[in-house]
């Protein structure tokens, strides 16, 4: 024994014990595992929550120093990212300018033209500002962030954004910072707007960048209500020089004082930008995730033969996910902080860890023998796969180890994670998944038991041991509840797996819930990260709306100048602000008295102005810097306190700077105060309206999309059950939900025509086919070719003598010739010849030479109608009947002179001719209809209403024997080898034996010359044999109510009666073995086959499976509303049909309903099974083939040429895989389409 083998054995033994352990104590082990997972995931709590928004950190301005490069030592309150100098210091000069007082002569453009014009002077001021102290003279040039080229993709912005030198942006950039260009610009708004993107935008636009405040706040628009223009001059500084900035601040403040500004200038805000994931970056990530899900899907699809496929798939995914979490948690615990982007490496980790082991485990456990105990199954399955699992694990570890030695930090880290993940995955597989699997398998067994328990309880004498069908182990089957369908809604049943997924989604409303949860999470993330400044915007809205919002705001303006009740008049209640202080530049002071009654734009400074940049899009700064190829990802910028600047311009100034084109703009508003009244609300509301409209549009599109998906995925007739699928027409084939409809077969069924009325009984033995119509006519057909071999006429003569009979016959002949001619001209010719020339059957007529002249004469003498009646075998049959009726008769009073009497009788008709032969078996009793028909060999057994049993020769059409002993109608017949069992209406059961005797009389005939050479005509019962049918036993009171069904197989005869019981008899000695009770209604259907499977169905809609050996009930299910009309069993399932026209397919071992098929009305009973895997059902004018295991509709064969078909009520499966079904007065022989044979 080599080392490997020994190792292998050890491993397998260890796994075996482990499996036993897991299966024995599932709950403690799962609890233990859960605790382990939670413990390992605990360190994850320390990790910061991921968020896309930037982070802020505020420091005081006074003692600000550039943070050290090395984060080192104690961090204190400082965030981790706060080390080293920032990318830039942002210094904003916030300008608020207004023309005041507003004059009615002014046009709207004036509200911003001259205020904007002031920016150039301000820029000059800033650029030329010098600060000199002991350390020298400094200007802005020395401090500011020098930028070089714009990104090559931004040519169109070249003239606008600064390309060289300091990064200073202001609205002046629109005009290249040149006052002349500004003055000559005829349309300022157009200049500003031309760079705006069309449509809706979420990111920062150029206008935002240059103005430095949000678009609506700038006040640069024609219908702005406030007439206060706000903009900033934004400087990016490379280094921080407190003294220079201080001097600049004081200089600007001195030049342009903001009287009521109380901005506190004591904080520097540092903003840290995370690595932003753009859409472009998201696409590969998304792709990997899609591939990951495809991988998981394809893997879990392989899980089969378990009770809950989805549960196990979920367990597998949970195993992998929690092992990942555990690995991250463990790594964090041991101080390995993850630097990799978790979202990116996650899919690869899953792929590396894989789901394979789980699947292998499941497969191995499932393939162990089912009759073992669950514990042992688990243990065996585990130990079978132990070696491969260990081998795989070792290989993977080796590969990862190799990866670790690449010495690339990122790969090393990945490998470390993968190793920990692999180990924890192994741990979880062994403990968690194995246990879940054992629970699952136990549930499966329990389900089996549950189905059987009532049966065992109800049967006192039953032995529990042999109940288990050892000879038929539960076959692999799909999980029952995944394909149990609501019958009516899924008429066109076809269940590929993809559809099952859809059904699953539909049933659990999974998609809905996921969308709901997703939306909630998304909203949560939105609120959490606040990317669009939503929270601030809302807060601003609220504070703007509420009158108290502005209470604390000191404001400029004289309260009594608002005489009318506009919104701002609420402010008049407030204590008026202190009178406008003297402003050197403010020329409006002088105009104030006469400005009463006119609006004075107010310039207010509020605390929110100090953080105007916070209102900007959080992409504002990354965007600005990205134009110069500077990334802010994982870096921070520092915002210095803004410098407030206020401009008050006089109307004269505004008029002076006015461009001649400005007046061409929209006429001034009719009332100067109108904007005041209406202005602000539209501003705010417009955005809201936009958002609402957008949301509405998105909703509509979503609904349309969902509707489309619904149409694509859901069945066409969903929700309108019972209307659409009432009948299946030729045009609308049943199709599955993907529009795929199984093909109509190319072969056309063989129509067997001849019966004048609806077909009542059908019987077949594979070679021959016997049918009986309501008129009592029995026809025998060749099951292979469809030729009508024999016609056993009843009141043939009565009909023949009338002209109606003639027409009928004629019609039949033509019809059959047509139908046959279509397929086989040769057969047609042969048939014709056979019919036309009686000499084609010399064997029949050679030994009766004296008959031929009679025939000839009869052809000549008789009316044509009779002549046709005599066509074919009728003569032979007559003669044979003559033999039959005379030779075996025990009475010697009738000499063997058979020639004339039968002939005479034939010519006279079929009227009861009892007087001449009173003692012999009476002639065929044509008056009572045939209730039961059986066919074996070439003998047809027909049970009539009168209680008479007749045996006919199928080939020759002669009555071989009859028995009149019973008086009660024969309701059912069974014909096995040489025994016939007849069940009667009275509830009695007769056992007949069919004996063959070489008749004496025949020997005598043989002795006569010319008759010795008569060849045997039939394989089973030679026509010369005398057949007698004797009652061997009559069970008078088998049931005390009429027997409804009778089946015989495997030496057993089973009867079902309306007295709610089923009885099992032994065929040989007619001994009653069991009386099976359990139905609460009359028995309507019984199935028994050679393997002694007995199933019965009753009027109560219940189906019982019985063990024929012990007489115990194996299972008992209720499946139908109304009678069970037919039952068929295969090795794996039981198929039942009921009066509710529903066909149900049950799992035989567990009694769980697999699925059901809604039949056409009245076709419920017609079903058959071909070769265990193919179900045939009849419909209106068609026959459908179904794949039995999954319920897929394979093919539909239409029987008639017209779309209006009659219902197929009976269906018989022949041995040669042909199907015979009745089709009104016709029979239809359908060969199973060749494409279906692929299933076998």
């Amino acid at each position, binding site marked *: 024994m080599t080392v490997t083998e020994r190792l292998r054995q050890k491993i397998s033994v260890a796994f075996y014990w482990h499996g036993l352990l897991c299966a024995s104590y599932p709950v403690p082990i799962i609890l233990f595992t859960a605790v382990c997972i939670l413990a390992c995931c605990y360190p994850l709590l320390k990790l910061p929550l991921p968020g896309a928004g930037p982070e802020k950190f505020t420091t005081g301005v006074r003692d600000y120093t550039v943070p050290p490069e090395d984060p080192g030592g104690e961090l204190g309150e400082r965030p981790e990212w706060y080390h080293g100098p920032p990318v830039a210091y942002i210094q904003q000069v916030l300008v608020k300018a207004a023309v005041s007082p507003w004059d009615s002569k002014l046009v709207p453009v004036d509200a911003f033209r001259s205020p904007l014009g002031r920016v150039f002077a301000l820029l000059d001021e800033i650029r030329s500002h010098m600060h000199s102290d002991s350390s020298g003279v400094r200007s802005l040039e020395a401090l500011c962030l020098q930028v070089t080229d714009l990104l090559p993709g931004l040519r169109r912005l070249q003239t606008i954004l600064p390309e060289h030198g300091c990064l200073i942006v202001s609205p002046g950039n629109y005009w290249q910072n040149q006052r002349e260009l500004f003055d000559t610009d005829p349309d300022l708004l157009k200049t500003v707007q031309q760079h705006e993107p069309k449509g809706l935008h979420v990111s920062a636009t150029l206008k935002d960048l240059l103005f430095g405040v949000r678009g609506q706040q700038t006040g640069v628009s024609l219908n702005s209500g406030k007439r206060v223009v706000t903009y900033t001059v934004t400087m990016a500084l490379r280094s921080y020089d407190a003294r220079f900035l201080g001097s600049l601040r004081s200089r600007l403040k001195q030049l342009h004082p903001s009287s009521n500004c109380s901005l506190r200038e004591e904080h520097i805000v540092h903003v840290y930008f995370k690595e932003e994931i753009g859409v472009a970056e998201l696409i590969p990530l998304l792709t990997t995730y899609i591939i990951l899900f495809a991988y998981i899907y394809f893997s879990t699809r392989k899980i089969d033969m378990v009770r809950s496929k989805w549960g196990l798939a979920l367990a597998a995914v949970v195993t992998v996910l929690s092992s990942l979490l555990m690995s991250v948690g463990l790594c964090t615990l041991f101080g390995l902080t993850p630097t990799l982007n978790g979202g990116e490496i996650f899919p690869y980790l899953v*792929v590396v860890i894989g789901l394979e082991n789980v699947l292998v485990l499941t497969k191995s456990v499932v393939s162990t023998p089912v009759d073992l105990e669950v514990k042992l199954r688990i243990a065996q399955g585990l130990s079978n796969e132990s070696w491969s699992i260990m081998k795989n694990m070792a290989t993977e570890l080796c590969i990862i180890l190799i990866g670790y030695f690449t010495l*690339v930090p990122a790969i090393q880290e990945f490998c470390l994670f993968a190793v920990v993940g692999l180990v924890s995955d192994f741990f979880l597989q062994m403990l968690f998944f194995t246990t879940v699997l054992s629970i699952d398998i136990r549930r499966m067994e329990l389900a089996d038991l549950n189905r059987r328990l009532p049966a065992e309880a109800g049967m006192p004498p039953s032995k529990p041991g042999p109940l288990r069908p050892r000879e038929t182990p539960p076959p692999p089957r799909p999980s029952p509840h995944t394909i149990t369908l609501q019958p009516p809604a899924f008429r066109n049943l076809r269940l590929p*797996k993809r559809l099952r997924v859809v059904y699953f989604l539909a049933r659990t409303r999974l998609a809905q819930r996921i969308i709901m949860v997703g939306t909630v999470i998304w909203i949560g993330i939105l609120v959490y990260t606040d990317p669009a400044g939503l929270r601030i915007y809302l807060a601003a809205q609220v504070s703007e709306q509420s009158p108290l919002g502005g209470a604390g705001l000191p404001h400029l303006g004289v309260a009594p100048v608002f005489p009318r009740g506009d919104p701002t008049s609420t402010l008049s209640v407030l204590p008026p602000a202190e009178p406008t202080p003297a402003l050197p530049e403010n020329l409006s002071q002088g105009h104030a008295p006469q400005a009463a009654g006119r609006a004075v734009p107010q310039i207010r400074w509020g605390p929110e102005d100090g953080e105007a940049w916070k209102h900007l899009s959080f992409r504002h700064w990354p965007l600005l810097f990205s134009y110069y190829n500077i990334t802010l990802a994982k870096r921070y910028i520092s915002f210095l306190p803004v410098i407030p600047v206020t401009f008050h311009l006089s109307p004269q100034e505004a008029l002076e700077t006015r461009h001649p084109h400005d007046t061409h703009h929209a006429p001034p508003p009719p009332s100067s105060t109108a904007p005041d009244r209406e202005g602000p609300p539209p501003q705010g509301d417009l955005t809201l309206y936009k958002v609402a409209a957008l949301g509405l549009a998105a909703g509509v599109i979503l609904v349309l999309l969902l509707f489309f998906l619904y149409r694509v995925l859901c069945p066409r007739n969903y929700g309108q059950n019972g209307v659409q699928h009432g009948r299946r027409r030729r045009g609308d084939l049943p199709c599955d939900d993907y529009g795929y409809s199984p093909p109509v077969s190319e072969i056309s069924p063989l129509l067997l025509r001849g019966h004048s009325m609806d077909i009542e009984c059908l019987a077949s033995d594979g070679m021959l086919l016997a049918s009986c119509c309501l008129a009592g006519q029995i026809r025998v057909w060749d099951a292979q070719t469809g030729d009508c071999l024999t016609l056993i006429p009843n009141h043939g003569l009565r009909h023949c003598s009338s002209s109606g009979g003639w027409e009928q016959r004629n019609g039949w002949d033509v019809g059959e010739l047509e139908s046959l001619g279509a397929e086989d001209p040769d057969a047609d010719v042969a048939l014709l010849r056979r019919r036309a020339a009686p000499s084609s059957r010399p064997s029949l007529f050679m030994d009766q030479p004296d008959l031929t002249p009679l025939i000839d004469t009869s052809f000549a003498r008789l009316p044509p109608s009779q002549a046709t009646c005599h066509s074919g075998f009728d003569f032979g049959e007559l003669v044979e009947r003559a033999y039959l009726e005379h030779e075996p008769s025990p009475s010697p009073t009738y000499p063997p002179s058979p020639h004339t009497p039968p002939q005479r009788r034939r010519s006279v008709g079929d009227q009861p001719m009892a007087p001449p032969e009173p003692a012999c078996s009476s002639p065929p009793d044509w008056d009572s209809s045939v209730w039961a028909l059986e066919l074996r060999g070439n003998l047809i057994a027909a049970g009539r209403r009168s209680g008479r049993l007749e045996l006919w020769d199928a080939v020759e059409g002669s009555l071989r024997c009859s028995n009149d002993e019973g008086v009660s109608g024969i309701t059912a017949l069974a014909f096995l080898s040489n025994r016939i069992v007849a069940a009667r209406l009275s509830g009695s059961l007769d056992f007949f034996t069919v004996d063959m005797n070489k008749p004496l009389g025949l020997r005598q005939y043989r002795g006569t010359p010319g008759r010795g050479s008569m060849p045997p005509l039939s394989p089973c019962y030679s026509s010369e044999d005398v057949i007698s049918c004797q009652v061997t036993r009559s069970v008078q009171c088998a049931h005390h109510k009429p027997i409804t069904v009778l089946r015989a197989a495997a030496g057993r005869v089973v009867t079902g009666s309306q007295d709610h019981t089923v009885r099992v008899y032994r065929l040989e000695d007619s001994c009653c073995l069991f009386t099976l009770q359990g139905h609460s209604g009359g028995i309507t259907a019984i199935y028994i086959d050679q393997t002694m499977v007995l199933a019965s169905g009753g009027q109560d809609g219940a189906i019982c499976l019985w063990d024929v050996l012990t007489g115990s009930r194996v299972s008992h299910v209720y499946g139908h509303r109304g009678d069970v009309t037919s039952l068929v069993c295969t090795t794996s399932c039981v198929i039942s049909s009921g009066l509710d026209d529903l066909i149900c397919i049950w799992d035989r071992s567990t009694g769980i309903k697999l699925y059901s098929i809604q039949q056409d009305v009245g076709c419920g009973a017609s079903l058959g099974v071909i070769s265990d895997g193919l179900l045939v059902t009849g419909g209106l004018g068609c026959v459908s083939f179904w794949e039995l295991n999954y319920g897929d509709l394979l093919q539909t064969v239409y029987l008639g040429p017209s779309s209006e078909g009659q219902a197929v009520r009976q269906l018989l499966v022949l041995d040669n895989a042909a199907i015979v079904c009745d089709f009104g007065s016709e029979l239809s022989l359908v060969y199973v389409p060749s494409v279906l044979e*692929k299933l076998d």
Partner: protein
Amino acid sequence: MADTSDVKAHQLESGPAVCGPYIAVITNKTANLVIRGVMLFSVGVFLSLVLNLLQVQRNITLFPPDVIASVFSSAWWVPPCCGTVSVMIGLLYPCIDHCLGKPHKFKREWSSVMRCIAVFVGINHASAKVDFENNVQLSLTLAALSIGLWWTFDRSRSGFGLGVSIAFLATLTTQLLVYNEVFQYTSPDFLYIRSWLPCIFFAGVITMGNIGRQLAMYECNVVQEKKHQD
């Protein structure tokens, strides 16, 4: 056991594979070839677009707002070329298997194919995102990863040979294109380009071959079934 279940799974998966027109399409050689070609082409184009995006991201983390442009940042002819080549490879692999007489049986399942694609994307990801110290290290790592890919998902000698030869040819073509200045790499380092390109090509060939073989399995199965039936 595995094989039969596999075949069964495919039967089930291709749902209508047991009946009429679908069978006809599948068994019709030309139609089958066209279907496979189209599928391979779309996979090739998609992967080339996505992987190109990965490469583009290597240096720039923040994009100018026009994202759509960056998706199609490569020249227009690159994706169709990739698609065509992947069609070629995907059809060539099963063909060679057929010529050698034994169909590829190792891990013939869709889940394994998906795993293979994921690993391929991962290799690209690593080459694009991970910072290596020098190019030798990068190329060695990539080579090891590619060979690991082959060993994990293919393990056939024909596959290896074909992969190496096609990778060689593709690298040669690329270099020729660069010499003729049809396009250029952002990084001027010649050695750098040469080092990672063949490995990526090799991994790509293995992946596409894997997909192609898996797709060809349908035909195989159905044809076999047909034979059985006949």
